[in-house]
């Protein structure tokens, strides 16, 4: 009897350790990535860069010109303007996508008949799986034209549609499916008793949907927003095809060309060597820090908001 018990205990312990091992393995990938990017990304600031001299960290983080001087001959990189335009583009896209995603999720979860809800859910899930390059090609082939014609009707001459507006539209289209899926799950799991209570008190369907359901699902909708912003901040291929590769200057004008940290990392990566190549790791490092800070901030806000509707 005793040996059977110890055998079971041993088996349990082994399985526990295996699971622990796989968890460590998964976590170790992120550590590995951070270490490699950090090691390469730090190099321009502490080494001589083959005679070009160290890159000035302060100028790198606050500069509004991507490179002052000729490529391969200068170390005066500055990505301050890129940080601002990346955040600007991502949050503007969130501003457009969030209402659309939330209301679509509300419709699918609460208002649509079962057959329609399933159909829409399938369509949205397929959209969420479309690769970013396809969104980029769609943007380059269609959105650029639309924005160009729009700019002409406003009396502003946009450069073939490459603009903040095109970038924001493409990003919004990309993050809507992801956000809808998550928000829909959150809305569906709102406690039925809350809804029934509200209806029993005399509120209309619409009042219930907006004041009770959405409020109760706020935490989940916020999670959707966090993931949406995360995807928007990290999007490279689609943005590179519609942004216009701005090399200097901060602008908030919707019809001006723009660039993001990711699209700049991507541009010219194939043909470049030396400092111009390594500096992309530094940009990647800055991007990772920004995504981390954004996530922390949004999570903090979510906890504060969530506390209002425990």
């Amino acid at each position, binding site marked *: 009897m005793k040996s059977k018990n110890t055998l079971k205990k041993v088996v349990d312990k082994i399985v526990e350790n295996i699971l622990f091992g796989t968890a460590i393995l998964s976590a170790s990938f992120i550590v590995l990535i951070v270490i490699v990017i950090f090691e390469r990304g730090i190099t321009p600031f502490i080494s001589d860069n083959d005679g070009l001299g160290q890159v000035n960290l302060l100028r790198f983080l606050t500069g509004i*010109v*991507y*490179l*002052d*001087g*000729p*490529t*391969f*001959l200068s170390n005066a990189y500055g990505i301050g303007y890129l940080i601002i335009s990346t955040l600007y583009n991502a949050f503007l896209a969130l501003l457009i996508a969030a209402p659309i995603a939330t209301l679509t999720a509300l419709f699918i979860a609460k208002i*649509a*008949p079962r057959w*329609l809800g399933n159909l829409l859910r399938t369509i949205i899930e397929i959209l969420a799986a479309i690769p970013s390059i396809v969104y980029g090609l769609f943007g*380059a082939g269609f959105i*650029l*034209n639309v924005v*160009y014609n729009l700019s002409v009707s406003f009396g502003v*001459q946009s*450069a*073939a*549609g*490459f603009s903040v507006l095109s970038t924001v539209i493409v990003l919004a289209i990309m993050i809507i499916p992801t956000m809808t899926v998550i928000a829909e799950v959150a809305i569906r799991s709102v406690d039925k008793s809350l809804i029934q209570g509200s209806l029993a008190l005399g509120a209309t369907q619409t009042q219930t949907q907006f004041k009770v359901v959405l409020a109760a699902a706020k935490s989940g909708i916020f999670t959707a927003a966090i993931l949406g912003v995360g995807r928007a901040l990290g999007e490279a291929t689609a943005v590179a*095809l519609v942004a*216009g*590769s701005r*090399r*200097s*200057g901060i602008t908030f004008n919707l019809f*001006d*060309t723009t660039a993001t940290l990711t699209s700049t990392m991507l*541009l*010219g990566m*194939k*043909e*470049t*060597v030396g400092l*111009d190549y390594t500096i992309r790791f530094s940009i990647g490092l800055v991007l990772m820090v920004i995504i981390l800070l954004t996530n922390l901030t949004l999570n903090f806000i979510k906890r504060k908001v969530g506390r209002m509707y425990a």
Partner: protein
Amino acid sequence: MNMHFKKGIWLTGFATLLAACGGTSSSVASSTASSQVPSFNAENNIVLYTRDTTSGTRDGFMGGIGFSAAAKDDNLLTEGFIIADNTAILTAMSGSDKYGIGYVSLSSLNANVKGLTFNGIEASEDTVLDNSYGLKRPFNWMLRADGDFPSDTVENIAKAFVAFMTTIEGEDTIAGAGAVALATNTRWDDIKSQYPVCDQDNSAITVRFGGSDSIEKVAKAVTASFRPRCGNFVAEHEHTGSGDAWKRTNGAQKDEAVGKDVGFASRNFTAAEQVDLNGTALPSEQLGQLAWDAIVAIVHNDNPLSNVDADLLKRMYEKAAANPIRTWQDALDAEAAL
């Protein structure tokens, strides 16, 4: 409620169909209407398109218009320029941007865009070869030093390859791949006796090609054409940029895994690249030119501009130009003054 949604879906689908068909029919309507409305407003600003600073085509273009400082420096260009690759520039000029100007390699020029004449000369194979068309860059090759190849067989094949590029068959292949081949009278059959290595079976031999990726298409076409003529050796291509041509055949990386036997560059070799690691000048048999690549400035087909010169283009692209050209009217006036 159910019927209400079904109707909604049908209506949406129907409306989308109408919009899609309407889109095509309205473009027909607008093209007939355009005869009444001027389709090109010369008061509009010029939108500049350029390649990235690491592009060989940009190097060639900026050098050709006397603005080489801008080949690597974006800050010298006029505000509002768009950085795009070859395909994106062509797409923009062929439809989406009527007020743009860009530049592409002659081999990518198609009928959807309007190629501008340079100093009155239209870009074509003949005008490049007789040197009347000035906006061009050389396609150059470079070999490893004698005895520095992985084996004598590889060395002999590489030298035979270089000789092949100067024969009629080689030049035909180069021209077929889009570059402007240099004139020649030699046939491969006349000279192949000088390269007995090509009579052997070389299917176990690998020759490594690298360097400029602008030349990749031409290089691959030539190796594909030469292989059956020289024992079917294996041609390994890894094109990573003109800078790697010297670096991987005679420079710092030549003995590493990425080292190459034949390197290509879409520009002239710099002074630092014409010597070996000890500073000794490379013998003339180790480098040479295989073709020209002409660069053509392009605009939209509706654009009335047709002729430019280096100064005009420079005044468009240069931010700090003394006499800048910023609108299409300025450009047309400058063209008239040529």
